[in-house]
């Protein structure tokens, strides 16, 4: 990353992104990710020499349209959280570009990124670990405002109270500490903090995984309501496909650092093209004893291989029921299959092009 841009005399707070470029179909692209990679070095020995790399994210490309929720789904170790963090530049990408509206984040200096971050926020998985136990709720929510130099202290106070009301908490709670709240309430505090600076883009990193079932539904509905009311754009990261359906407009499935399928919500659930997506869907338990008894489940053999040493060819081939010789040798290309769902199934599983990006 270069620092050349930081020499420019910067005006007061960074203005909100004015426009997002439109793609060929006239959709506004708020976030554009191209060939994004994030490798972590594996160090060994006394000299901590680098002996290899964990390829957490290994070349992913996609667009996030303004006003949509893109679900990013994968199992532990697939790189979905690292992808989210790399997009926000919380991790410096090893390669690739991320464009936010009209700005190239990967070419910005630290200061400019920090200023832009006011428009892109994050909601974290663990509402117990992501809130400082020694800060009051009021201070937790107003911290981003103070950091970005928004308003004076009276104005910030007023804004915090409104934020608490918006997420369904009593404004009277501002002087309480996180331990006085339940998991669901803490997650609401985390959401209020993310909303404080009026962002346009939010990365929600498994925001419901640590919550009880009845509370998960509350938080999913809250995020969806906020999106409608505030015109937000989300990257919603999850480890299974069940809840994602209720909030996403499009869904991307990740496996071992790569996106293996990306499509509209209904396409992914009704016509999954990639064998891994099919297995993920089939693994979701159905709360109905009659259906559950009749259902034929795809049970994948073995575990996810190490991202330090991914399998040759298609990364999914050791666990794939459809794998052939070509899958063991050739790395499948991520390509647009159009909207034709029927015949696309065949090349999606038997030929090198095992993945398809069905856009619509």
């Amino acid at each position: 990353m270069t620092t050349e841009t930081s020499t420019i005399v910067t005006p007061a707070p960074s203005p909100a992104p004015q426009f997002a470029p439109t793609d060929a179909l006239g959709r506004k692209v708020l976030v554009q990710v191209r060939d994004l990679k994030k490798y972590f070095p594996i160090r060994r020995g006394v000299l901590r020499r680098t002996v290899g790399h964990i390829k957490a994210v290994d070349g992913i490309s996609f667009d996030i349209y303004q006003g949509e929720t893109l679900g990013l789904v994968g199992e532990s170790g697939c790189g979905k959280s690292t992808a989210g963090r790399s997009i926000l530049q919380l991790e410096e990408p090893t390669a690739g570009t991320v464009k936010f509206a009209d700005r190239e984040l990967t070419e910005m200096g630290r200061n400019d990124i920090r200023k832009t971050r006011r428009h892109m926020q994050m909601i974290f998985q663990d509402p117990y670990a992501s809130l400082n136990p020694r800060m009051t709720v009021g201070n937790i929510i107003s911290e981003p405002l103070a950091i970005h130099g928004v308003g004076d202290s009276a104005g910030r106070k007023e804004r915090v109270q409104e934020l608490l009301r918006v997420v369904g908490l009593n404004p009277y709670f501002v002087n309480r500490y996180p331990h006085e709240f339940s998991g669901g309430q803490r997650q609401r505090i985390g959401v209020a903090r993310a909303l404080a600076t009026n962002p346009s883009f939010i990365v929600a990193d498994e925001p419901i995984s640590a919550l009880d079932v009845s509370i998960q539904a509350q938080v999913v509905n809250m995020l969806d309501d906020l999106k409608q009311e505030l015109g937000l754009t989300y990257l919603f990261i999850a480890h299974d496909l069940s809840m994602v359906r209720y909030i996403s407009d499009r869904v991307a499935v990740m496996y071992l650092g790569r996106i293996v399928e990306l499509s509209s919500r209904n396409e992914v659930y009704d016509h999954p093209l990639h064998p891994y997506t099919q297995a993920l869907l089939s693994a979701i338990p159905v709360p109905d004893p009659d259906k559950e008894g009749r259902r034929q489940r795809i049970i994948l053999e073995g575990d996810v291989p190490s991202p330090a040493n991914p399998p040759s060819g298609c990364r999914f081939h050791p666990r794939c029921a459809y794998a052939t010789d070509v899958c063991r040798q050739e790395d499948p290309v991520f390509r647009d299959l159009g909207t034709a769902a029927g015949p696309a199934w065949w090349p999606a599983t038997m030929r090198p092009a095992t993945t398809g990006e069905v856009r619509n």
Partner: protein
Amino acid sequence: MAKLLEVTNLTTRFYTEDGIVHAVNGITFDLGEGESMAIVGESGSGKSVAMKSMMGIIPSPPGKVEAGTVIFGDRDLLQLSAAEMRRVRGREMAMIFQDPMTSLNPVLTVGVQMTEALIMHLGMKQEQANERAAELLTMVGLPNAADRLKDYPHQFSGGQRQRIGIAMALSCNPSLLIADEPTTALDVTIQAQIVDLVLRLKQQLGMAIIWITHDLGVIAGMVDKIAVMYSGFIVELAPVRALYKETAHPYTVGLLESLPKIDARRKERLIPIKGLPPDLLREPTYCPFAPRCRYNIERCWEENPPLLPISKDHTSACWRAEEIFNGLRIVDYSKEIAVDAIAALAEAPL
């Protein structure tokens, strides 16, 4: 079916600095030989504490099993001495845990840990125990089992560790297996593997199973009956089909409604249970679910409803159980956020 386990009025409390935690409030259920049941509840519902009370592994102080009987075979487990209880645990009833690392010792090889129980409980010789351990690991689907006995727990993946936990639990042929959220920490595809394995083993070995979970999805196809717990009470107890199809308690209705449906058409809205989890410090004088219940009436705030039969083998602790059993549903699609506050927020200084 001969009775294997009869739990009556089991009551456990924790005496803490903040007050008395009413963790388990007089639960009663039974289980036949080879029968499988699930205990469903969210965090703080008392499901794990109830099982630990049965097995005599409640940390005391602060915990105390205050009342009840647990008849297992022909004796009351709550009356047994610590030494007698140790013989029952591991040999006649075994437990698998959410995080298999908690039941595996990280500095001992898997072989040492697996043969320990075989030597202690079954009096096997080391060599014989090694053989049996390899056999058990093969049975739970671990490849090259005999060679892997000398490996340490960290050399296995999460799913493999859970398989080892299951092999250890089954090593002495228990008549009852208690599974405490064994799949919660695992990825969905691995979860499917483990559920499949436990079902196969149950068929093969015929032990009874109590499966503790927060997820009504996982157990739909695998148990005979289900007890739903809330705030330390069993609020509904029913054969599996009746629980899903003839639900008779508002909390169970709420749990089912808030679950994502994978076969839902289009983008639907989830129906959450509003409000907060229960406060266990409160003396349970009225219905503990009333503050979150869309069906609550005056009586719910005056008397805590007892668990009463609604149809064959089906009981529910709700004053309006019959109406709900007969299909009464109140649906609340209200927003999760304060929409009027949005406008105020837009005007707040930024």
